[in-house]
């Protein structure tokens, strides 16, 4: 076939946008992180000084640690959403409405979810502490005490995520041949044994996918905390809040970019695995 410029013309608009607004900014962040670059002044190359400052900044370590702690939503989400999927898939009636109810939090904007939960978490007059008080628990300092306020944001994340991961598990379970399970029942395996020894190994790709998607989102948590605990000290929040504080409240773009590079490094393993899984699935 002769040389054909047609595919280039088709690809050009998208790749101009992608290049200018995704690939180039990635390189710019790396470059900015080596600059003394304030919004208000000229910039100047300072080598690794931003990173040295970062690694000696206790607020950086505190927010980094919180981002890592936030990873504990992943095992919780996996257990909750797999349990839900196992329960929902044998529903004969009402499966659609149950999926609808569980999925509504997924499409709810984070800001709105944060607003609702902030009221539910309100310590003196909120719904949650009221319910807990009926069981003589609390009052729990959901918003004002660390690390409880970290857990509150995690709860919002689990609430918004469980329906999504349940759907992924349902799709994974749909691929498990019926005979495999029936064989397990005939062997006299208890339901739990059956899940553990038969289903989980077959669900490995889905489990891995859910784990990496949830983890890379967890490290990047921001809006939940921005809405839930706006007045809390920075040390109660996670790494993106640190980036936001320095880049957009103090306009220290160089320092913020260095934090951005750390964020990239932290999510890379998860997002790389995610993309690998998606690409492999597609080409097989």
């Amino acid at each position: 076939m002769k040389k054909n410029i047609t595919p280039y013309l088709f690809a050009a608009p998208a790749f101009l946008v992608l290049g200018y607004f995704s690939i180039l900014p990635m390189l710019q962040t790396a470059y900015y992180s080596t600059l003394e670059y304030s919004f208000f002044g000229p910039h100047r190359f300072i080598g690794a000084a931003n990173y040295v400052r970062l690694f000696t900044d206790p607020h950086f370590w505190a927010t980094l640690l919180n981002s890592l702690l936030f990873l504990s939503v992943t095992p919780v989400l996996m257990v909750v959403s797999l349990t839900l999927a196992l329960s929902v898939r044998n529903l004969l009636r009402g499966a659609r409405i149950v999926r609808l109810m569980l999925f509504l939090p997924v499409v709810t904007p984070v800001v709105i979810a944060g607003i609702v939960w902030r009221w539910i978490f309100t310590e003196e007059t909120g719904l949650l502490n009221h319910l807990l008080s009926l069981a003589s628990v609390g009052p729990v300092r959901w918003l004002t005490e660390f690390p409880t306020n970290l857990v509150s944001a995690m709860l919002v994340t689990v609430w918004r995520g469980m329906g999504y991961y349940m759907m992924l598990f349902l799709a994974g379970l749909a691929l498990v041949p019926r005979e495999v399970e029936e064989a397990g029942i005939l062997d006299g395996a208890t339901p739990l044994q059956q899940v553990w020894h038969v289903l989980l190994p077959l669900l490995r790709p889905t489990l891995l996918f859910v784990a990496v998607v949830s983890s890379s989102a967890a490290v990047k948590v921001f809006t939940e905390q921005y809405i839930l605990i706006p007045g809390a000290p920075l040390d109660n929040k996670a790494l993106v809040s640190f980036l936001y504080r320095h880049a957009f409240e103090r306009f220290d773009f160089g320092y913020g970019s260095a934090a951005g590079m750390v964020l990239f490094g932290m999510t890379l393993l998860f997002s790389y695995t995610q993309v690998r899984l998606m690409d492999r699935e597609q080409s097989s």
Partner: protein
Amino acid sequence: MRKALSRIVIITASAAAVIPFLWLAATSVKGAEELFVYPPTFIPRTFQWENYTGVWNAIPFGLYLVNSLTVALLSVVFNLLLSSLAGFALARYRFRYRGLLFGAVLFSMMVPKEMLVIPLFTSVLRLHLADSLLGVVLPFAVEGMGIFLMRQAFLALPRDVEEAAVMDGAAPLRLWWSVMLPMVRPSLAALAIFTFIGSWGDFLWPMVVLKSQEHYTVQVGLSMMLGTFVDNYRYVAAGSLLALLPVALLFILMQRHFERGLLSGSGK
């Protein structure tokens, strides 16, 4: 036994999923004096529908909704157009830099949006798009995931489709538009729904770009109301419910498309 356990799980989770929405709805019609009573009341004593007109009049809330709708619809149009053009090229043509371009798509999927906001902000300033809706839309007018999904959709089509069309002498652009696009309609629908919901709920980037109140999207507007209307939760609640309605309705009406699309991008 197993059935009963399943039922308990489902009822508990459904209640946990739905109660916050009921709480939001209840708060949105409560009177000011009922907001912080203890114990909290689930069913409001009085129904103050004025909260809805209140939020509408106290701030340019209608404008926020229009801005969000503009941003979301523009994002949908741009993403569908650009992703399906590029996805078509990557899936149905062999050309020299195809591997490199697809590599760029995969790479862009690994870069967290949160780390790009600083250089994107400086770019948008340079382009004189700061504090504008176009500045919110343009940087995400196409995303790696969208190109990936459309490539996947076009790859799944049988080989002989375009051969027949090419024999008919169809120009490539017409082939793409009138033969190929109709065949990937489910993927287009899924991408449209995802883009709309994602763009409607986006917060960090619009907050960085938009400075003046008349340009706020509804999420930025709500977060600002939260700061200024401290004593007026009921307005914020009414506003939140109004801002939730479009995505909730879209999802309820398109549940089937949504669920199918979800799985096409999930490694399944």
